[in-house]
């Protein structure tokens, strides 16, 4: 894990090494500072008046230390931050690329929110972990160890006292953090629960109004809210304890250093062979404050680094997913005529549950093939296999006489125009959404496609017409309108085979009629596959396939099937 992380950092190692070096140097300067401060104070409080030479010399040295310390402590996190941002950006891009090369099974089975979190929040965690915490940890350790050594050199007794007291603050902080971590988690959970409840009720606000459920829902909300108050209060108080508690410990160690130093000075106890002067006390006091600070920081930093490692693991999980095999070496599919043949197709999503066991069909160029059947019969699965979203377990599919396994997936998919029942729109203008399949289309072409899809009249009425920005997957449009835009998108693509999978399910029956006229023009000379629930819309198909249990149970034209009084006839009579 760490090795793989390091691989990403390798490119930026120069910046990281320099950054660490700067961190050590600035830590060192921070240590030397108080020493010269003490000397300066001694020069001030010398027995025979102020020693101006010594004071001047020390102050000049001090300012050199301070200025270079400031520069170094600015550059160090800057460099490491840049390196970390670069490494994380690489990692993020790799993750995204890997995701795009994964088979569709990944998208169908993984919760989308979880994957998105990995690309956003987990990458952020890693950035925080290596970019900031790393350097902080580094300079923190340098400061703590250095201060301790410096204090021991000056006065072992006082250093020992500080060493006894200060870890107390660490222990207190640890204790409080562990105790409150549970409370914070509980608060987080309740907040999530409250958010989910609010989301559910407010998205169903119409139903709440219609059934005048306001009082009841307010009651339920107040219940959760009251629970949130209880955990929130304790968590907040627990969290608020840390600062004053560590401040108390720091104050006590500050007082102890001062008092001990003063007592030693009065009683003439020497430290390291030297008399303790006011300047030495000043130095010690300065070290005492410096010593405590990073200790508290390190506690926070270690959890951050732990988080980063956990996040890195989640990213690596995705990078370890098996991508679709590379097919760049294969030929591109060239389509001379749009025939589609399926022979002895075998497929299942889960090995234990065979879905398609032996499916064969032939669609003549320019014909219209309708696929009907009950929910779960495998209609959409056939589309998945035609487009090679999923790979068959056996059998062959030929488009224009070519086995689809022998050509690149991209070129195969170029041969199809497709409208799915779940309408997918991306953030962008209406025009961009329609032109998604062929970005070079002119405004005129886009408008024509929209007209053929009966989308032109409502698009014109949108605030900015074709330039209206669609957000939230087209949340500002109705289901039918979204569907019409995806239909226009398919209409714009000039592909030999057309697939309509419940393409007009959200469109009303009259509009559907017009859309079908548009499709009629589009389908001329093209092979099309239509999956539909409303049987009325597919009666004119050249071939109707009734699918159930993954296989074709009946096929023929409308009149043939009606005459046979079999499954299709039953479906027609059941109506909807």
């Amino acid at each position, binding site marked *: 894990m760490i090795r793989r992380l390091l691989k990403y950092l390798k490119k930026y190692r120069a910046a990281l090494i320099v950054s660490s070096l700067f961190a050590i140097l600035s830590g060192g300067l921070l240590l030397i500072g108080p020493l010269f*401060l003490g000397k300066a*104070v001694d020069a*001030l409080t010398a027995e025979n*008046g102020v020693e101006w030479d010594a*004071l001047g010399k020390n*102050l000049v040295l001090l300012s050199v230390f*301070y200025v270079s*310390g*400031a520069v170094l402590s*600015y550059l160090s*996190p*800057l460099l490491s*931050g840049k390196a970390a941002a670069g490494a994380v*950006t690489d990692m*993020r891009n790799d993750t*995204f690329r890997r*995701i795009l090369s994964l088979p569709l099974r990944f*998208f*169908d089975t993984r919760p*989308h929110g979880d994957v*998105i979190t990995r*690309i*956003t929040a987990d990458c952020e965690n890693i950035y925080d972990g290596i970019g900031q915490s790393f350097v902080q940890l580094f300079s923190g350790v340098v400061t703590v160890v250095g201060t301790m050594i410096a204090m021991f050199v000056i006065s072992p007794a006082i250093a020992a006292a500080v060493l006894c007291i200060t870890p107390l603050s660490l222990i207190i902080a640890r204790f409080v953090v562990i105790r409150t971590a549970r409370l914070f988690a509980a608060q987080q959970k309740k907040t999530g629960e409250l*958010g989910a409840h*609010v989301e*559910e009720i407010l998205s*169903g*606000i119409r139903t709440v109004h*219609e*059934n*005048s459920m306001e*009082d009841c829902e307010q009651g339920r*909300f107040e219940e959760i*809210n*009251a629970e949130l108050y209880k955990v929130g209060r304790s968590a*907040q*108080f627990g969290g*608020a304890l840390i600062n*004053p508690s560590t401040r108390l410990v720091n*104050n006590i160690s500050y*007082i102890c250093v001062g*008092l001990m130093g003063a007592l030693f*000075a009065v009683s003439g106890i020497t430290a390291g062979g030297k008399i303790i002067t*006011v300047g030495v*006390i000043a130095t010690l006091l300065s070290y005492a404050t410096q010593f405590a600070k990073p200790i508290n920081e390190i506690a926070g930093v270690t959890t951050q680094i732990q988080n980063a490692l956990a996040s890195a693991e989640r990213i690596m999980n995705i990078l370890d997913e098996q991508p679709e095999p590379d097919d760049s070496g294969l030929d591109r599919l060239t389509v001379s005529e749009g025939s589609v043949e399926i022979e002895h197709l075998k497929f299942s999503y889960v090995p234990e549950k065979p879905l398609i066991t032996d499916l064969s069909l032939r669609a003549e160029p320019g014909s219209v093939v309708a696929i009907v059947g009950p929910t779960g*019969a495998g209609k959409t*699965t056939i589309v998945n296999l035609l*487009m090679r979203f999923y790979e068959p377990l056996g059998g062959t599919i030929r488009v224009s006489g070519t086995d689809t396994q022998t050509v690149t997936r991209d070129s195969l*998919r170029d041969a199809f125009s*497709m409208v799915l*029942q779940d309408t*997918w729109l991306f953030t962008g203008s209406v025009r961009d959404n329609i032109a998604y*399949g062929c970005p070079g289309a002119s405004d005129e072409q886009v408008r024509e496609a929209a007209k053929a899809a009966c989308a032109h009249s409502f698009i014109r009425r949108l605030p900015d017409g074709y330039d209206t920005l669609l957000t939230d997957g087209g949340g500002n449009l109705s289901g039918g309108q979204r569907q019409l835009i995806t239909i226009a998108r398919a209409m714009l693509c000039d592909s030999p085979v057309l697939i309509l999978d419940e393409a007009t399910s959200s469109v*009303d029956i009259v509009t559907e009629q017009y859309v079908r006229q548009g499709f009629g023009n589009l389908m001329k000379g093209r092979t099309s596959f239509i999956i539909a*629930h*409303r*049987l009325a819309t597919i009666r004119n198909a050249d071939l109707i396939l009734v699918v159930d249990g993954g296989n074709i149970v009946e096929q023929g034209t409308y009149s043939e099937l009606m005459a046979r009084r079999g499954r299709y006839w039953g*479906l027609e009579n*059941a*109506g909807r």
Partner: protein
Amino acid sequence: MTKQKSRKAENQILASAKKYRKWFVIGPVFKLTEAIFELLIPTLMVYIIDRGVTGRDGAYVLRMMPLMIGIAVLGYLSALVCQYVASLSSQGFGTELRNRLFRRMLDLPQKDADRLGASAMVNRVTNDVNILQQAAAMLIRLAIRAPFICIGSLIMAAMLNLKLTLIILCALPLLIAAVALVMKLSVPLFGKVQKRLDNIAVISRENMSGARVIRAFSRSENEKKRFGDESKEYYKAVVRVNRISAMLNPLTTLIMNVAVIAVLWFGGKMIDSGDMTGGRIIAFVNYISYMVTALLVVANLVNLFTKAAASAKRVNEIFELPAGGGSRPAASPDGDNTAQDAAPVFELVNASLKYSGGDDVPAALEGANLAVFPGEVLGIVGITGSGKTSLVSLLTGLYACTGGEVRIKGRNIHDWDKKELSRTVRIASQQSTLFSGSVAENIRAGDPSVTEDEIREALRIAQAEEFVDEKGGIEARVERGGANFSGGQRQRLSVARAVVKKPEVLILDDSFSALDNATASAMLGAIRGSGIKTLVIVSQRAGSVRYADRILVLDDGKCAGLGSHAELLETSEIYAEICRLSGEAEDEGQAGGAGPAYAAGNAEGGEAL
């Protein structure tokens, strides 16, 4: 006027804090006590050094020890009191504000709720209130303390030596300027970073949900580029903001250290002339560092309060909207509640509904006139967007008509108490929204007077008894949005919810679209036999309404025909067209034979995998 409005609304936020008013005084008082104790420590150290060390008085040093530790402990205890008060009152304030805000959201007119959208409202109840809550806590904990430490240090320093304080007075504006500059430059940059990260999330989400379409159109390379570009912009933004924000600490420390050097130099001159002691110099240096630390806290506070102000504005936006939905006192029942059968149970008089104000936006419903009598079955048909749902939204009072009038039992709908209205007119709406909880809770819909027997009867009427029993009876769990029920089952549960209290008027808004004909007609029969007299059936399909007493045909927001099936076939072109397109199968009517078992039930949704 806007000022007046915002003041009224602000009261809602302040009112939520009112209960905790005293804590907002007590908390800071304790915090101030702590700050004073803290400020005393360096001064006491002066005495130890000047009198103890320089004066060689060991007993004095020992005497000071318990005093100083006592002060530190007392300071700690005051801080604890303050922290406790702060968590108690800030959380209490947030809880109260959330309750008020949620109540107001529930009471918003549907029009405003639609316009705002659920996610915007959710953000306000959660994120914005959280920020306000945090700001309240910080107000108690730090807003007084940090400036006090700043000023207090300055005063203490001035008491030690007035002339040297001039150095601080020179450094202070520099420090403030440095902090302000860094913040001014970095805050908008942080905003940009967040925006970029949001974009990355959006692209990722779209690529997850659109995987099929992206592949179908072979656009993977473009998506990679789109993501790569955004990711690069994000990188640049992060590096840019780092460049600025990393300056804060080194810059302030440097300014402070320069001040310390100046203090030492000029302090030296004063010691020379006997105006200053070594101990005082040390204390002086200490106060400077206190001040810088406190100043950084103030900077963070300014940041937090800026954010809180934005949140307060967003929360106030909700409070400023008129609460339309709230229940009105019921008009005294003056006899017309028990209207004679001859009087219409509801009437639309020239009723219009327009969702947005623009002149060029056509009305969703225009000049609708209709009177329906008790016991009547009314069908409403029309294509998508013809105004069917708008019309029934007027009947349930979800929307107020923008022109004309709606009368229920002879009384203007505005004069009805909301609860009473929903007992009289009930709708099973298109969306069939269910809430997480049990089946019983969903059907009860917040009415505690609904008995278990009534729930069972409602399920029976809605043809839902069988599948509810299969799921484990009326206490069976309903997942969020009814996800564990199919579309047809959700429709039936939503009908059960509407019929449970036997309303006088029942509206079925496209309630059969996922049901097979046999189930639909059984349900209709059960409803008619249950004592619900007046029925309104809304549908896109002619088959579902053909046996209604009268059918209203809507087209482009206007009434385009009213009459029986046979009459309309003759007189209304649209109706005839809808009938024709609905297909012959539907001409056989709802009583048509039941199909094979697999075709029955839930056709909605298609297959996912």
